[in-house]
Every structure is written in structure tokens, then in C-alpha cells.
């Protein structure tokens, strides 16, 4: 029951537009409000938001629990890193390349993986991460193995007269913000389209969807590729921001992080993922006050999430959003 139903004292003013406006302003002003540390944390949130959006399309909408995001994240990071280091290409090229390479690699990986169901699929996707790391470690001629790629240059844009390089935390924040915003918009567009509805159908009951003419196989493959592309784009930001890419980028820790973001925010809800990434980074950073017990506390937070916020924070956001929506 959303609050609007239980709010007969009619004609409250719709506060959603003003609130949205405030949020936008806040997002834009953030670097000037908080310290560089805060800005940095926000950048991390924005970087992880992209793969999380991708994952949300898979888990939240299509019902495919995947742990492969870290693999595609890593592939994207390496792609961008290698381009930047060897060919010194402008940022948008690296970003697009990262998305493209990850997205395309998802095809050969997805074809076998998506034939599997439930847990087998999960494990297969986890396998991609492990194998990805092994490749990053041993394909030394390209990845420089464990040495990793370091000294990845700052992102720059080549726009004839108004070419510029993104230096410093603040400007990187705006870059990340822009990319994340576009990503969010794209994800939103996908789930709002009829395709989004078909994806949900697949999540709810694949055979029934099939019988109603939904080409589930093709959808799953496409969504898998899209989500990989999202991860790749995130990876390119990651590479440019941390200036280092090492085989460590392929680790389950990142995959689960993204999963936590999606489920914490509320699977099957775009705003949930946006909120989730902020929540996640906020939480882990907040817990730094007690370094010794940080991860223990984090573990408990996960349990709280699972048992008290079964659907993540999405329902709360909804309630709130409708509540301030005034009455129709």
C-alpha cells in the first residue's frame, strides 16, 4: 500500500519536481560542498554505478544472477588502459572501445553460459572472472602480467580548438557524473521499452514467456552483452581514475560489490541501483572509523540487508517518492 492511498487530505502539492531539482543541483555542487575525500568517494560510486546498472538489467530484470561483471569490468579497464598507454587515444575513444570490446566478448562467452540454468550459470560466470585473472597474469606480452599497467594518462578530449585534459579530482568527478548519467538514462530507456517488459517476463517464467512468443534466448544474449558493455564503460573510467590496472581487477570481490549495490538498492529498479551505489560507498567508507572491525561490521550490514530489507531500499524509495507526489 503506497502512502498516497492512505492520504485523503487531498491536493498536497507535488514535491517531486522540486526535490529532483535539488538532487540535480546537489550532484553538480557536490565537489564544492564536501572535501576531496568525499568527491573521491562519489567518483567511486559513479564508477561502480555503471557495471551495477548492467548487472541490474541481468539480475533485476531478466532474472539472471551473474558474477561475471568483474570480468567485463576488467576487460574494459585493460582495453582503455592499453589504448591510453600505447596509443595515447582520447578518452571517448577508450571509453567506447572498452564498452565495445566487453560487449562483443560477452557474445562468445554468453552463448555457452546462457544455456545453463540458475546456479550452473552463476558458477560459469564466476569462472569467467577466475579465468580472466589467469589470462591477465599470464598473457604477459600484452597485459604485462602481474606488473600490471601503470601510469595510465589522464583522460583528454580532442575537439579541435577546444581540446582539453581532465585533471584533478573535481573535473574527473564531472566526467564520471556525465558518463554515469548517460548510463542511467540508457538503462532507463531499455527497461521502459516493451523489451523491458519481455525481460521481466523471462525473469518471471521463462517457459511461459517462450510460449508467448518471446525469443528468450536472443533477449538473454542481448541483455548479457549490454550489461557487459556497461561494465566495460565503467572499467574505462576505473582505469583512467586509478591510473593502474592489474590482474587484481579480475576478482570476485568486485562482482559481489556490484551485486550488493544492485540488491541493496533494490533489484529491478533503476533508481535503486543509483541509490545502491551511493549507499554502498557511503557505508564502506563510514565503516573506516573502526578499521579493525570494519569488515565484520560490513558482514553484519549484509545480513541486515538480506533479512530486514528483503527487496532492498527500492520499496522505501517508492513509498517516499509517491508520498511527496501529492495526490492525483
Amino acid at each position, binding site marked *: 500500500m503506497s502512502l498516497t492511498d492512505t492520504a485523503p487530505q487531498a491536493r498536497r502539492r507535488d514535491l517531486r519536481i522540486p526535490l529532483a531539482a535539488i538532487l540535480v543541483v546537489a550532484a553538480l555542487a557536490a565537489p564544492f560542498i564536501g572535501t576531496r575525500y568525499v568527491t573521491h568517494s562519489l567518483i567511486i560510486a559513479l564508477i561502480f554505478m555503471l557495471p551495477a546498472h548492467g548487472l541490474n538489467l541481468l539480475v533485476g530484470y531478466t532474472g539472471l544472477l551473474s558474477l561475471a561483471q568483474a570480468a567485463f569490468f576488467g576487460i574494459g579497464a585493460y582495453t582503455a588502459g592499453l589504448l591510453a598507454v600505447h596509443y595515447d587515444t582520447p578518452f571517448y575513444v577508450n571509453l567506447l572501445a572498452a564498452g565495445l570490446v566487453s560487449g562483443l566478448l560477452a557474445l562468445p562467452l554468453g552463448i555457452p553460459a546462457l544455456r545453463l540454468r540458475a546456479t550452473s550459470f552463476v558458477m560459469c560466470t564466476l569462472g569467467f572472472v577466475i579465468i580472466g585473472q589467469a589470462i591477465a597474469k599470464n598473457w604477459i606480452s600484452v597485459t604485462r602480467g602481474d606488473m600490471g599497467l601503470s601510469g595510465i594518462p589522464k583522460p583528454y578530449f580532442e575537439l579541435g580548438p577546444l581540446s582539453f585534459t581532465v585533471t584533478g579530482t573535481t573535473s574527473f568527478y564531472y566526467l564520471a557524473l556525465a558518463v554515469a548519467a548517460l548510463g542511467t538514462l540508457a538503462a532507463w530507456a531499455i527497461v521502459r521499452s516493451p523489451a523491458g*517488459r519481455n525481460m521481466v*517476463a523471462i525473469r518471471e*517464467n521463462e517457459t511461459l514467456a*517462450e510460449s*508467448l512468443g*518471446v525469443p528468450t534466448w536472443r533477449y538473454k544474449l542481448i541483455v548479457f552483452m549490454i550489461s557487459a558493455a556497461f561494465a566495460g564503460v565503467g572499467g574505462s573510467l576505473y582505469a583512467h581514475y586509478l591510473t593502474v590496472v592489474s590482474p587484481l581487477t579480475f576478482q570476485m570481490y568486485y562482482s559481489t560489490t556490484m551485486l550488493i549495490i544492485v540488491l541493496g538498492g533494490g533489484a529491478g529498479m533503476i533508481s535503486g541501483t543509483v541509490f545502491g551505489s551511493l549507499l554502498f560507498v557511503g557505508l564502506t567508507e563510514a565503516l573506516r572509523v573502526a578499521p579493525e572491525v570494519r569488515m565484520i561490521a560490513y558482514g553484519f550490514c549484509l545480513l541486515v540487508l538480506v533479512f530486514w530489507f528483503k527487496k532492498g531500499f527500492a520499496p522505501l524509495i517508492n513509498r517516499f517518492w509517491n508520498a511527496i507526489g501529492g495526490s492525483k
Partner: protein
Amino acid sequence: MNAHLPILEIKNLSKSYGAVKAVNDVSMHINRGEIAGLIGPNGSGKSTFFDCSTGLARPDTGKVVLDGQDITGWSLNRIAREGRMLRSFQKTVTFKALDVEENLIIAGQMFTFPTLASTFGLGKLSRSRIAALRERARELIKMAGLWDVRHQPAGNLSGGQQKLIQFASMLMPEPKLILLDEPMAGINPKIIERVVDTIQYANKSLGVSFLVIEHNIDVVTSICQRVVVLDQGAKLVEGLPHDIIQDQRVREAYLGG
């Protein structure tokens, strides 16, 4: 297409699971614009026959020809989308977390958005199409007497109500042919009358052909123009409803005295 041909023709279909010959060399056809019935004792292979004709299961042998086109080996979704032949399941299945309206709209999308690419559209066109589907869905919801619960998640509805959603979904797009597996099971008598009317309306006015598996003999006799009886995977008899129910073999195998 050539109107004299039967809409669906199945030749020598067989399917066995281990020792069990679920369907054993069954041939049958459905004429254009016909409502045919498929009956038989439990475990006689009716559902398996459906599964094999609609691509859910692969027949061991046999040929399925839909509207002159050989669709043997097509996937379930292709048969539904391109072949325009839909089927309902005996086991009640719905998109549990979605409300009744959404359940029906999903069913409607398959012909309204023919290509995969078109489903990603967000423009005016796709919005208006969806709106149209919603209208249609509401009609069917009224028919099924689900109006009061149309915004409830399907999973929260009663067994019969879910069965009705399944039936309504079949009519959301305009298919050529619908295969129904026990549509009346667990539906209360009054609604059964409506479902029957709806089937006949769809058949007369929209020219949809039907093949209906049903254990409710009254319904079978009242709507079917022709009935095929399976027994132990094989075709026992075929004929007009009232002849069938008189048939001695059918009485023994199916009606039970």
C-alpha cells in the same frame, strides 16, 4: 493462403520417454475455423502431443505442418510468433509477480512488436500500441471476472483465477490457432459459460481455430465440432462429439461405464 488446406496437420507423431510410449504414431488435423476436441484418459499422451506439436518437446518421429508450412523442430517461441499458433499449459502458470493487466499485455506484445529491434522502441508509436493492448486486456479481464483483482500480482490470485489469466492471454494477440490444455479445470460453472462463449466468439468473428483438451464432457460436446480420442498414446477413435460419447471403447477407456 490456400483456404481448403487444414490449418494444422500432424503426421505420425511419436514420442517416448524410456519405456513409456507417451505418444505413439498419432496423426490428426484441424480444419480452418474448426473447434476440435482432444480427449483421453489420464496419461494417454494429450499434453505430450501438445508439447511435441508446439515445440516444447521434440517429437521422436513425425511431422507438424502449420498452414501449409512444415514447422517440425521450430522453437516454442518461433511457432508462437511466426506460426501464430499458441498453446496454454495444463499446469497453471502465470508471471506471478506481475499484475493481471501486465500478464495480458506481455502476451499481446508478440505480434504488435514483430521484430526484436522494434521492442526496444520508446517512441509515440510503441506507446500507442501498448495503450491499445491495455484496452484489449481490460475487455478480456471483464470477461474473466477479474476486474476487481486486475492490479493484484497474478501469484496472489486463486487457482481458478490464474487459470483464467492463462486463457485470456491466449486471446490477447490474434492467433490463427489456439491449443488449450484443460482450460475449464477448476473454473466455476458460471464463468465456464462465459469462457465457452468467448471461445465461440473468437472462433466465429475472429476466425481463430481451436484444439481443446478437456475432461469436462459437457463442454466438449457443446463446443467441439469434432473430437479425437487418445488412449495409451495412440489414437482410439475420431468423430462427432455425440457419436464419441456413445462409442463403447471410449466409454470403457475414458468415461468409465
